[in-house]
């Protein structure tokens, strides 16, 4: 896999000793991460292993009980991180605002912060929708789109922020295999074109091994191992092997 050599646009993300509990259930049990600028880092693991909770901590939507996340060496705090770093998240559901049109959704960050004039915003919206292959649907509402289209609009909205860090929460869930491949290609294309840091949370093995520079396997709130796709494939850890085998079987059943 070709790794971008232009990390100047991306940011470095580190986490040390992250712990988080919900009503006495410890969801994160001391997570340590070091994600390089410009890297595509995939966090894999079975449902309920704490992947999405970790993602929310990284972006500052939740605060950890213990430990710290740093982006470019500065701690992440809710409400302040967005003032320092342009980051975007593509939620599992897309999280498009249903009351707005597709164009308004994509241009929301620019229009709300008054960063561009309306004609400039229209031009940027067109460009970003073009990047995800959806130009011409600016006036449609999210409710009129398919699941895959909504996800791609969510990616376009994230790109309109011109992010240094982009996070994807289960980007291929509920998508057919062809659309899943399209999304994976989008993730790779963005990395190569813009050099941004990408963190992908997924339990889709094909996506993870197809796009990742490095993969972390999560299990029951801890990171079992981190490595390149080849290192993970060759891991001797029985839980990692069991997870990969089960995922492979599931994908086989899905194809059949």
């Amino acid at each position: 896999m070709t790794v971008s050599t232009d990390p100047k646009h991306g940011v470095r993300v580190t986490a040390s000793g992250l712990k988080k509990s919900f009503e006495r259930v410890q969801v994160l049990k001391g997570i340590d991460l070091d994600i390089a600028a410009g890297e595509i880092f995939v966090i894999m693991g079975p449902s309920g292993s704490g992947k999405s909770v970790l993602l929310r901590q990284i972006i500052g939507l939740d605060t950890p009980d213990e430990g710290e996340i740093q982006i470019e060496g500065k701690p992440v705090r809710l409400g302040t991180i967005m003032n320092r770093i342009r980051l975007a998240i593509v939620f599992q559901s897309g999280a498009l605002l249903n009351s707005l049109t597709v164009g308004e959704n994509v241009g929301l960050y620019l229009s709300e912060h008054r960063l561009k004039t309306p004609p400039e915003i229209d031009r940027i919206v067109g460009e970003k929708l073009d990047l995800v292959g959806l130009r011409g649907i600016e006036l449609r509402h999210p409710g009129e789109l398919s699941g895959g289209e909504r996800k791609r609009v969510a990616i376009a909205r994230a790109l309109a922020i011109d992010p240094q860090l982009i996070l994807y929460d289960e980007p291929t869930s509920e998508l057919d295999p062809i659309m899943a491949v399209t999304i994976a290609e989008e993730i790779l294309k963005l990395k190569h074109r813009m050099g941004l840091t990408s963190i992908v949370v997924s339990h889709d093995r094909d996506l993870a091994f197809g796009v990742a520079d490095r993969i972390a396997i999560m299990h029951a709130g801890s990171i079992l191992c981190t490595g390149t796709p080849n290192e993970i494939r060759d891991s001797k850890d029985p839980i990692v092997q069991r997870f990969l085998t089960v995922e492979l079987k599931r994908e086989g059943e899905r194809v059949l």
Partner: protein
Amino acid sequence: MFQSIGEILILLWCTLRTAPKIVHQRRKILEQLFEIGNASLLMACILSMFIGGVLALQSGPVLAERGLSTYIGGLVGLSVCKELAPVMMAIFIAGRIGSAMSAEIGSMRAYQEIDALRTMNIDPIQYLVLPRLVAISVALPLLVVFSILVGWFGGGLVSMSNQKIGVPFQAYFGHLRELVQVHDVANGIIKSFFFAVVIGIVSCHQGLQTIGGPRGIGRSVTKAVVNSIVLILILDYFLTRLLLYFNI
């Protein structure tokens, strides 16, 4: 309960702090105003007409038996503008608009739209709560003025057409004009403004507190409507006492 009241007051304070940015939200305020007016005007008209009518129907014959039928105009006029129009419209708007507000914000929370706003550094209070609070605070007093006029008209219609009352339109409005002063109408409008703030802030608070999916949204909507109505009735008593103290 005290925790909820505290959270509501904090939300109100945070919303008021975003008020200087009200100009940025003017489009959304207008959309909300249209939403409230469009959804409520016809129903408000029907409701007010029958409130005025039933008040005349209940009290008219009693007054007529004692030879006081001409007082019906003043009685309906004062009751409608000082109490019935503001309270009934507030309850109606809590059910019609408050529920819609909490459902919309609740579903935005449940489906991560509010998280998406936060990640774009857009303050959900400024973006969602402020326009709704401003719109309802403008719309409810206007609806109350409309409701007062229609309520008076409804009372007059029943007073004229009911044989047991038999007060002509002119006599009805003549006595109404004699008894009802501008400050009486202002009394109803002031009350309705505070009721609007209660409905807006309670509904938005419940929406923002939504946990879970459709069931959580349903729970938030029920809580928003019930809490708004209870608070409106409690606040009505204290506002009435306060306004009486100031002779309004």
